[in-house]
């Protein structure tokens, strides 16, 4: 173990395998579900590391993202591959061979296992293979692949002890020996090249790869020698481009032929029979709609009471703590509104995240997710996304935070990033109070209930309409990287493994709280600070004096406390910023009060309602259906007496909230899931710009026609 990939002395095992091969299930079983998840430096690919106990001591095990090949991988996967197979290799590789997909597994094995590190193979899905009448001769398979093969059924813990014993025994051994059976002319060419004086210090496998793949690296003499050898190959009629893959697949097929015995001609399996309904052009869509409806309905029905509970608990904690801090108003407000409020702001997302991931876990574990992606691909594919984007986008109509996290079901980094970037445009439930308030204040009184209902309905499509071109531009013009064709495997339909779902849900919840939750917490405190300070006894006394000198106007004069709060909010840093930015928002027809309300709503859109309550009416406790708040907004005027909001800039304000990125939880989640602040910043910038342009446009249209 001289070239350990792990500088911290503990040996490192890397777990390789294709997607859907049961790799994650095995990883959860080996690590007991305790894993640390981070990202590979600078990319979206997650790195999950756990610990396992071998008789000789603890070792680290890393779950390598599922791959089909070491060659056609995205830039992000390349980083992960480089980290694992680059300069220092892991001390041992456990390779997952999928018994129902053995050819494809062996193809990847032939690439991964080429090298000098020890490898053991875990043969998964043997229970499924048995049901399909297949028996696998593991002794013969082991002889052919050159490393120990251990059958494992992870969720039943069968074969796990044997796998650990094999891992212990193989540590420190050499790499597996297997003969892929390249045509004679190729092995001769490699043998000739390996004694070429210009040869860099590389293994024969590397020479062969450079020869066949046409990617020579080294001195000009070496490149010339390779080019000459390649010309000779072509002259003999060999298609070098496809030869490597063909040879490996021929080797895989020969292994399967020698090691797998299939009993008789089988009827269709249960999975295939189910598929005839599940992916049927008519019934399949019906089942899809029913499953999605049931799934999202239960997320909604279960999450709402839990969220109410969290909000009630946060409120109760606030009112419990509040009377205990009597000596300093600012400290009390910091603890109650800043700290407790901030914790609540992060916790409130947890029910939706956990329940959504239970749903995703079931869909993934049964294999239905792939079927649904198969059916949805055409609808989502033409704007550069793919069928797998439907769960993240659908979830985002409830809340973008779990929606963005759900984008991890997409293995293609480009499409995943595009999905993450457009997910916040979906009309989430936090926009509803804003729509209800403004429609109730401006549209309903003028046009009646029918048009009000239509406006509410139409507002839900505004974001979706913009999401299509944004996704198209992102994936076609902006996001760089190789375009990989969309391919999808439909794994066998199975019962879900509850343990894997439990691990998935717990891991996602923990990651959210640790990363995004922390950011949300600190942003809450920052916003609290901006809206609380500056504040002084003198200033408060001045507001009190102002109030006492104001003439009483029926229907306009508000309570004493509400007046002081309005003046304090006006003079806070946030209020000053709002006043300072008024010229920027004036083209959209917004005054400093609306501007301040927009700024105050940065933590979350629905905060705009209480902010407008303070700035226009009786205080922060008025809900979006309060008639006094609606009247106050409808009757608000510019200093010159012109009405502040007409139908056009009221629509502009709603569209602004439909398109803007006023939600720090979303931005924090984008930062976590896309791996950098850059993407969170980009989302904020393009959405705000889009929102602003649309609001200004509507106001100008209003000015022209109104």
């Amino acid at each position, binding site marked *: 173990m001289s070239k350990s990939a792990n500088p911290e002395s503990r040996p490192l095992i890397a777990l390789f395998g294709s997607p859907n091969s049961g790799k994650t299930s095995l990883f959860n079983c080996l690590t007991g579900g305790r894993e640390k998840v981070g990202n590979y430096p600078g990319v979206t690919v997650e790195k999950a590391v756990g610990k396992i106990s071998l008789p000789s001591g603890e070792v680290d095990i890393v779950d390598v993202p599922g791959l089909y090949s070491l060659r056609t991988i995205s830039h992000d996967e390349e980083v992960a591959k480089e980290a694992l197979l680059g300069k220092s290799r892991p001390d041992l590789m456990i390779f997952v061979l999928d018994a129902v997909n*053995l050819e494809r597994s062996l193809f990847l094995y032939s690439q991964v296992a080429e090298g000098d590190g020890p490898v053991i193979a875990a043969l998964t899905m043997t229970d499924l293979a048995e049901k399909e009448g297949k028996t696998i001769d593991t002794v013969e398979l082991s002889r052919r692949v050159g490393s120990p093969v251990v059958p494992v059924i992870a969720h039943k813990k069968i074969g796990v002890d044997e796998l650990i014993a094999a891992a212990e025994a193989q540590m420190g051994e050499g790499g597996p020996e297997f003969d892929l059976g390249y045509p004679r002319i190729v092995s001769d060419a490699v043998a000739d090249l390996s004694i070429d004086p210009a040869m860099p210090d590389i293994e024969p496998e590397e020479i062969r790869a450079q020869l066949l793949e046409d990617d020579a690296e080294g001195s000009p003499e070496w490149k010339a020698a390779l080019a000459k050898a390649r010309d000779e190959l072509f002259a003999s009629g060999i298609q070098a481009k496809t030869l490597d893959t063909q040879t490996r*697949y021929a080797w895989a097929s020969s292994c399967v032929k020698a090691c797998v015995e299939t009993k008789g001609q089988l009827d269709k399996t249960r999975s295939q029979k189910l598929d005839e309904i599940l992916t049927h*052009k008519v019934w399949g869509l019906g089942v899809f709609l029913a499953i999605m409806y049931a799934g999202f309905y239960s997320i909604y029905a279960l999450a709402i009471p839990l969220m109410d509970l969290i909000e009630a608990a946060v409120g109760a904690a606030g009112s419990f703590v509040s009377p205990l801090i009597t000596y300093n108003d600012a400290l009390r407000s910091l603890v109650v509104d800043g700290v407790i409020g901030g914790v609540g702001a992060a916790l409130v997302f947890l029910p939706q995240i956990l329940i959504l991931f239970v749903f995703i876990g079931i869909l993934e574990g049964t294999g239905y997710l792939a079927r649904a992606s*198969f059916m949805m691909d*055409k609808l989502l594919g033409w704007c550069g996304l793919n069928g797998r984007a439907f769960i993240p986008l659908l979830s985002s109509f409830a809340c973008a935070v779990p929606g963005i996290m759900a984008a991890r079901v997409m293995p293609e980094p480009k499409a995943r990033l595009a999905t993450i970037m457009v997910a916040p445009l979906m009309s989430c439930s936090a926009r509803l109070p804003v729509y209800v308030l403004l429609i109730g204040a401006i549209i309903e009184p003028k046009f009646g209930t029918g048009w009000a209902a239509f406006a509410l309905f139409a507002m839900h499509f505004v974001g979706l309409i913009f999401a299509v071109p944004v996704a198209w531009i992102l994936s076609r013009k902006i996001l760089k990287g190789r375009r990989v064709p969309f391919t999808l495997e439909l794994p066998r339909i199975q019962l879900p493994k509850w343990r894997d779902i439990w691990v998935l849900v717990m891991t996602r919840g923990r990651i959210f709280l640790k990363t995004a939750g922390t950011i949300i917490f600190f942003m809450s405190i920052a916003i609290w600070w901006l809206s609380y300070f500056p504040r002084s006894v003198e200033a408060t006394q001045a507001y009190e004096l102002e109030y006492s000198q104001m003439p009483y106007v029926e229907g306009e004069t508000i309570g004493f406390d509400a007046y002081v709060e309005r003046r304090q909010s006006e003079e806070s840093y946030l209020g000053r910023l709002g006043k300072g930015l008024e010229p920027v928002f004036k083209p959209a027809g917004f005054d400093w009060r609306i501007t301040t309300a927009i700024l105050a709503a940065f933590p979350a859109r629905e905060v705009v309602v209480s902010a407008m309550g303070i700035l226009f009416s009786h205080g922060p406790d008025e809900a979006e259906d309060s008639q006094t708040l609606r009247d106050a907004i409808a009757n608000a005027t510019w200093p010159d007496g012109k009405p502040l909001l007409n139908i056009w800039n009221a629509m502009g304000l709603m569209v602004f909230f439909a398109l803007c990125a006023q939600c720090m939880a979303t931005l924090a989640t984008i930062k976590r899931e896309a791996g950098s602040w850059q993407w969170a910043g980009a989302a904020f910038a393009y959405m705000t710009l889009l929102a602003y342009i649309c609001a200004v446009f509507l106001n100008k249209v209003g000015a022209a026609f109104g």
Partner: protein
Amino acid sequence: MKTAGQDLKFSELRPGMRARVENYASTGPDTHRFMDLGLVPGAEFEVLREAPFGGPIEICLFGSSLCLRRCEGDCLLVKAINSN
């Protein structure tokens, strides 16, 4: 009616047909990904079904399913080896 032995485009295949990969119309990342999944020249597969709205086509290769988009699959040159 497509008959056995006919050269076809991938998108012309219909459920129930069996076909063999003859070659690739182009080389590039697309063809690499398909070859890595086992669609090497000489590989035989069966067309299982088509997704709604003209979506991807599901094929059965080595006893496992694989779905490709029609347009992207057209870099494959295939030959029908029997027909229903």
